[in-house]
C-alpha cells in the first residue's frame, strides 16, 4: 500500500510568487490533514478535511493560504502571494477514521518550502 505522498519535495520561490503543494493521501482515507513546521519551531496544525469538506481550518495563518480537496481525493495547498515567513516544511497526513484516539495518522515526507 502506498503511503502519503507529497509533491514537490522541495520548492524555492521568491517573495510574492505563488506556490501550490500537493498531497495524495493513502487510498481510502477520508481524513486529510495539513500541518507545517516553520523556522524550526513546533509542527502546527493547519486544517482538516473530511472527504472534500473542510472540517476545521482554524490553523490556517491567513487568507494567503488556500486548501482544496476536490473530489475528496488529493489535496492542494496554495500560498499566494508567498512571504518570507511562510518558509518551512509542510506536512500532509491522512487517516481512515477521524480518530481522537487510537487512529493513527500517517504523514507524508513533507514539502520543504523556501521563500527568498
Amino acid at each position, binding site marked *: 500500500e502506498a503511503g*502519503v505522498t507529497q509533491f514537490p519535495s522541495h520548492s524555492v520561490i521568491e517573495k510574492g510568487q505563488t506556490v501550490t503543494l500537493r498531497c495524495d493521501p493513502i487510498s481510502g482515507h477520508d481524513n486529510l*490533514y495539513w500541518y507545517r513546521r516553520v523556522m524550526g519551531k513546533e509542527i502546527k496544525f493547519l486544517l482538516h478535511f473530511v472527504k472534500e469538506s473542510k472540517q*476545521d481550518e482554524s490553523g490556517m495563518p491567513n487568507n494567503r493560504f488556500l486548501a482544496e480537496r476536490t473530489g475528496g481525493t488529493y489535496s492542494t495547498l496554495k500560498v499566494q502571494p508567498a512571504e518570507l515567513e511562510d518558509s518551512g516544511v509542510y506536512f500532509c497526513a491522512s487517516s481512515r477514521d477521524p*480518530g*481522537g*484516539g487510537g487512529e*493513527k*495518522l500517517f504523514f507524508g515526507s*513533507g514539502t520543504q518550502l523556501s521563500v527568498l
Partner: protein
Amino acid sequence: GESVGLHLPTLSVQEGDNSIINCAYSNSASDYFIWYKQESGKGPQFIIDIRSNMDKRQGQRVTVLLNKTVKHLSLQIAATQPGDSAVYFCAENGENTGFQKLVFGTGTRLLVSP
C-alpha cells in the same frame, strides 16, 4: 525532506543503552498522546500512543509513561540502536475534538553512537 532545527535538545547515548525522552504537555484536558519519530528527509512516523485512562503502555522495545498529575510524558527505548537516531516528538490531542488536531512538542534529537 526537512532540515531539522539546529537548537533541539539532544540526547546522546551508546548503542545498547536505554534511552528516556521526556515531554511536558500543557493541556490538562488532553486525553490522547502520541510519540512520533522523524528521520532526516521523512515525515513523522507513529511509534506508540496512550490514552489518559492509562499510565503506561508497552510496545516493541518502547514504553510510554504518562503522569497526568504533573502533565508529563516519557518515551523509553530499550537497547537503543543506531537506527533509533532521529528526532522524537510528543503530541497531544489538545482539544478533545474527536479528530487528530494534534499539538506537537518541540522535539528531542536522539543520537546513538555505535
